[in-house]
């Protein structure tokens, strides 16, 4: 639905110079910015949006159907067996948690580092984070044999003695990590939108909208006092969120690292997973923004220089991931552990080797193209790469989980795993959920932080007046 030609703004983009990079093309006035950002909210949705929404919604429906069937009939509707107890469920879980990483990283860490290029993309990245974490949180729930008892993993006073939860279990750490992360991200996202809500409030025609936005803007009155407190608040939040970026995936990785299974039991997992998460997160941000900037006519604010910056981060994290792969194999070889060796040999040559090579190709090799500046600024190539990385990262989790499980210690227990239609449906459904949410987001909320972008454009505006 999108024709690929370098957008007008880019053709006469000024060459790089000593001056610090400008993150907006052209010279929009503050009003222009507000208009541009609010266009999607005020105008009626186009055919493209409806088409996209239809696809996403039906995917969501498929997912809903699959989950309902699985929960009512039993986990047996999946392809799991006595040896492979996790496969698609946890693969998807880790995959989505990973996606959810870019948001906080961009907003919190880059904010603390005063990286101005984050301003244009932070909002949508945060939104993406929240939706991704929602998708992720779904899987630990539905993968339970008795999901209706999921609340037992929460430590709450009860009439059983009381009987508490097992604080030694990484799954429990997950519960806390994911929930904390979701909460902080939500608050952070919301707080970030307050000034824009105020703008929307002031511009809203219908009384209903005005009421809604005034609720959301918490009585914001752009006074200097408000602004200064607001600055403090968001810096504090950023400080709070920063450790989470590390903690969440560190803890997710411990689901595997703390086990005894060869291929899971590895101390390298936390850094390896965090890097991978940021990697996949940025890949997803790229995928989305490349589409969005196009269909929402936001090339002016989400410039090639933004894409370039993100590509660089992908290059870095991608290389870290590649290094992690290598290290794992080195350990397996150097460690002289017969079980460990067998697992990694099986990954490379075994029945799931195809998946392994997809993973290596997409995650370790493909990003190396980004050393070339021209490719970093070639939108189609970037788009293709970002998709590749998304696929590769999904397979990374699949390979880690399934190849370690299906051939562990006792050869008598070795089995094969084949996903059932229900599992595939659930995966599709999670994408449906994600994109439905995101499509609604771009229609209902300002997907660029106007007040921050204006701060960048601000001084030029002064001069023209």
């Amino acid at each position, binding site marked *: 639905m999108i024709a690929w030609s370098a957008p007008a703004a880019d053709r006469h983009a000024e060459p790089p110079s000593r001056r610090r990079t400008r993150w907006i093309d052209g010279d929009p006035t503050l009003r222009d910015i507000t208009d541009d950002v609010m266009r999607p909210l005020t105008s009626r949705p186009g055919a493209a949006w409806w088409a996209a929404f239809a696809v996403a919604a039906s995917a969501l429906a498929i997912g809903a159907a699959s989950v309902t069937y699985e929960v009512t009939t039993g986990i047996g509707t999946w392809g799991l067996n006595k040896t492979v107890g996790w496969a698609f469920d946890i693969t998807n879980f880790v995959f989505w948690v990973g996606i959810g990483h870019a948001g906080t990283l961009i907003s919190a860490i880059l904010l603390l580092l005063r990286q101005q290029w984050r301003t244009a993309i932070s909002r949508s990245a945060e939104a993406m984070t929240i939706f991704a974490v929602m998708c992720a949180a779904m899987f630990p729930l539905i993968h339970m044999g008795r999901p209706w008892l999921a609340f037992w993993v929460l430590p709450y006073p*009860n*009439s*059983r*003695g*009381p*009987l508490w939860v097992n604080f030694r279990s990484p799954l429990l750490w997950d519960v806390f990590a994911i929930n904390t992360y979701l909460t902080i991200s939500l608050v952070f996202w919301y707080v970030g939108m307050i000034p824009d809500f105020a703008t929307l409030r002031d511009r809203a025609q219908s009384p209903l909208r005005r*009421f809604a936005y*005034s*609720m959301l*803007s*918490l*009585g914001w*009155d752009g006074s200097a006092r408000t602004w200064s407190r607001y600055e403090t608040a968001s810096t504090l939040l950023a400080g709070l969120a920063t450790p989470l970026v590390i903690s969440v995936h560190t803890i997710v990785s411990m689901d595997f690292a703390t086990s005894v299974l060869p291929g899971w039991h590895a101390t390298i997992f936390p850094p390896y997973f965090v890097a991978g998460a940021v990697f996949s997160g940025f890949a997803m941000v790229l995928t989305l923004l490349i589409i969005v900037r196009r269909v929402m006519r936001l090339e002016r604010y989400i410039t090639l220089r933004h894409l370039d910056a993100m590509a660089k981060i992908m290059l870095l994290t991608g290389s870290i991931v590649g290094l992690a792969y290598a290290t794992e194999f080195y350990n397996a070889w150097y460690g002289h552990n017969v079980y460990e060796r067998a697992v990694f040999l099986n990954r490379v040559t075994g029945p799931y080797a195809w998946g392994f090579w997809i993973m290596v190709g997409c995650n370790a090799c493909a990003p190396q193209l980004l050393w070339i500046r021209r490719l970093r600024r070639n939108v189609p190539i970037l788009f293709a790469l970002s998709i590749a990385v998304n696929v590769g990262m999904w397979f990374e989790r699949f390979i880690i989980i399934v190849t370690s499980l299906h051939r562990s210690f006792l050869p008598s227990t070795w089995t094969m795993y084949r996903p059932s239609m229900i599992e595939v449906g659930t995966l599709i459904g999670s994408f449906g959920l994600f994109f439905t949410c995101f499509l609604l987001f771009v229609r209902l909320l300002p997907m660029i932080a106007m007040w921050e972008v204006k701060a960048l454009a601000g001084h030029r505006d002064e001069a023209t007046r």
Partner: protein
Amino acid sequence: MVSWQLAAATAALTCAIAAAVLARELSRVGVHQGYAPAQPIAFSHKLHAGDFRVPCLYCHFGARTSRHAGIPPANVCMNCHGLLQKQTTDLELLKELIDQQRPVAWIKVHNLPDFVYFNHSQHVTAHVECQACHGHVERMTRVEQQAPLTMGWCIDCHRQRRTDFTVPAANLDCGKCHY
């Protein structure tokens, strides 16, 4: 701009109340304290166990050797009532049933979910009073479940018995009751 503050306040309040109510009710799901169904024969424990001091284990002899205390078979009733002259409508009913070779279908008062293994003889052997769990049945005309029979309630007793060395120690292993 007060509207949003007001709204927020009310919203928060309602949520809090709803949560409290829900929590309270959920915590009582499956607890049948006070359950006292009407029995096909209005047998009075107060009369038998209380006034006439018939020992519990005379009728519920199963408690000595079996996991089930057991409901006395009709022939046990008849041990006495075969001799006693006094007649009541309930006794008539009982004799009628016996003539028809039909056992009495009593309603079980103290029900445990069957993922719990409870063994009467184990507790009788450890000198646990019947009343400790069943309450003062000898004062009840119609038997009523007095204890909550929740796991916490069991555990409390087991815990005490671990500290009190005058009685056989109770065990807190899950596998004591769940298998």
